[in-house]
């Protein structure tokens, strides 16, 4: 393996490092998406509960 085995004339070590950084970034995004999903699910459960209450008590001014 010589010094320019990687992409674009860079060394393979450099290319490997770029891949690791990109993978870390992707993993962080995945974790953030998982958190966003949980929050959206809670929000939807709340909306469902509000809808059920509104249907059960249609005359309630609150």
């Amino acid at each position, binding site marked *: 393996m010589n010094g320019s085995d990687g*992409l*674009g004339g860079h060394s393979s070590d450099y*290319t490997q490092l*770029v*891949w690791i950084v*990109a*993978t870390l*970034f*992707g993993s962080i*995004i*995945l974790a953030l*998406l*998982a958190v*966003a*999903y949980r929050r*959206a*699910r809670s*929000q*939807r459960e709340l*909306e469902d509960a509000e809808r059920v209450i509104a249907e059960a008590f249609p005359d309630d001014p609150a």
Partner: protein
Amino acid sequence: MTAPSQLSQLMTLTCRGELAERPTRATQLMLTISALFAALVLASLWGVAAGSSSATMAMANAYKVPMVVLLSALTALPAGLVALKLANAKLSASDLVSAFATSIFGGTLVLATLAPLVAIYYHTSSKAGVPLALGSVFVALATATMLFGRAVKRKVAGQPGPMASLIPVVILVVLFSAALMQFVALASPIIGAVTPFHGGFDTVFSR
């Protein structure tokens, strides 16, 4: 049960481009994230099939291929959102992201469907294995592009200036493909043979 209903909604959204009733913001976000996560699982299946020539490569592909798909999408997305704003399109950003995620889901669904064929040819044919693996990627890309265009077209149907909404679609598809080419090169080897894509842009356009 929530999961089958959500999968059913996801399939409806992917096949028809929109749901019968407009989903709430929370539901739309859930469906978008579900589409992306499901797409990553499906891409992983294809990765295992494409790398099945060795156990190490198959295991590495199980995370490499989904990561390549995710990173390509993340690379393309900001430009698509900026193009959406600059084109003054009537389509909302959440609708664009949702359509993008479901089209990626559709594309990876095609990849996963072709994964057994890729695996069997990979082990039984020296001529057709690699071309079939590469061909399945192009078929998936074409399918995803078609689904994306159709979903956006349906969302803006009846609104003034529908062509403005197609500009971010074109930009997203082009940038996704461009990023995919480089991330595939970064993550290589994904297929156990040298392909024109192992060196990214430089080897694809070397002539």
